């Protein structure tokens, strides 16, 4: 239990996927303009990450390893992630057409969110079991969502701030992201994996 808790803490805060591993930066920059869209994106990514890490573990454990096809993992995981993302899109479109419109192209782009593939590959590399994989995926998703939502609120404030001409828009957003990453480095003192 403590083991799982430490794993969750490590994946969501200490080794936050966005702010210390620099994975999944495109939605981090792309969907952080409006809070509603960011919240939807955070939930969708959390959903995809959890499902995809569970399924990719199952595929690895019961298909790829027995058949000696470990070298196929990147291809197969990408295929799997694409499928899960497509399923998520169908779900979102059916349950909330407005959110579907708000997320636009960024919803299918979860497929190319490197955090999702990163979690699937890290699960395999660290030899996580099924439960560990699910916890790792969910907490990575929660960490991604946390970073995205915090960053979005900062950016909404930046919109009204008096920023020097040369730094307006993306540059000041990137500087802010860097400062946030520095702040998150503080969690390294927690000593979790």
């Amino acid at each position, binding site marked *: 239990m403590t083991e799982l808790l430490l794993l969750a803490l490590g994946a969501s805060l200490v080794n936050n996927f966005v702010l210390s591993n620099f994975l999944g930066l495109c939605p981090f920059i792309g969907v952080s303009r409006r809070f509603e869209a960011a919240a939807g994106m955070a939930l969708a990514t959390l959903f995809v990450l959890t499902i995809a890490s569970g399924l990719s573990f199952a595929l690895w454990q019961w298909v790829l390893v027995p058949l000696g*096809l470990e070298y196929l993992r990147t291809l197969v995981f990408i295929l799997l992630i694409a499928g899960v993302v497509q399923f998520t899109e169908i779900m979102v479109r059916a349950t909330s057409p407005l959110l579907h419109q708000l997320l636009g192209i960024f919803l299918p782009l979860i497929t190319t969110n490197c955090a999702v593939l990163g979690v699937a590959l890290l699960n395999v590399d660290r030899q996580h079991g099924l439960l560990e994989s699910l916890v790792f995926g969910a907490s990575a998703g929660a960490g991604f969502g946390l970073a995205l939502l915090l960053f979005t609120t900062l950016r909404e404030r930046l919109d009204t701030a008096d920023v020097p001409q040369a730094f307006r828009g993306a540059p000041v957003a990137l500087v802010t992201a860097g400062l946030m990453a520095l702040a998150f480095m503080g969690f390294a003192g927690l000593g979790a994996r």
Partner: protein
Amino acid sequence: MNPDAVFIAVLVAAALAVTLGVALGWAAARIEPDADSLVARIDALLPQTQCGQCQYPGCRPYAAAIASGAAEIDRCPPGGEVTVRALAALLDRAPRPLDPAFGVTKPAQVAWIDEEKCIGCARCLPACPVDAIVGASRQMHTVIAAQCTGCELCLPPCPVDCIELRPAMVVSLRYRQPRAA
């Protein structure tokens, strides 16, 4: 690597792709129709001008409001009586006259920009719900007539009043002619 291993690898990847494809197809067919079919069918009857005269941000939100009972069916001036009757038939309600509080029905129209007067301020671009205005800052703007729904939303932001509405010569690709159900 022996040929068998390659064969198995291809087989596994293909099997996974086919499984995912079938599962997604099933999910799409299963989930889509019942969730918001009424909203979609109401939306299909609305003229898609996205003009906001019904006090909702666009046709789809208005359709959702009708479906949930939050709004009456008499709020769509661009659709006119025809649309009200079609909606009444779809929803099995009594047709009612259009509520004049939300505007009056006009013949199909498109926006036209007087390019002599346009100063290229780009303020009409974000106002357009269907992105039918082409232009950039300090460049003259123009309207793609085939995309324009004649919603009049570009008139208020224009500082020099260079936009006017003219009778539509071509039927807009976006605008759906009011039709009976």
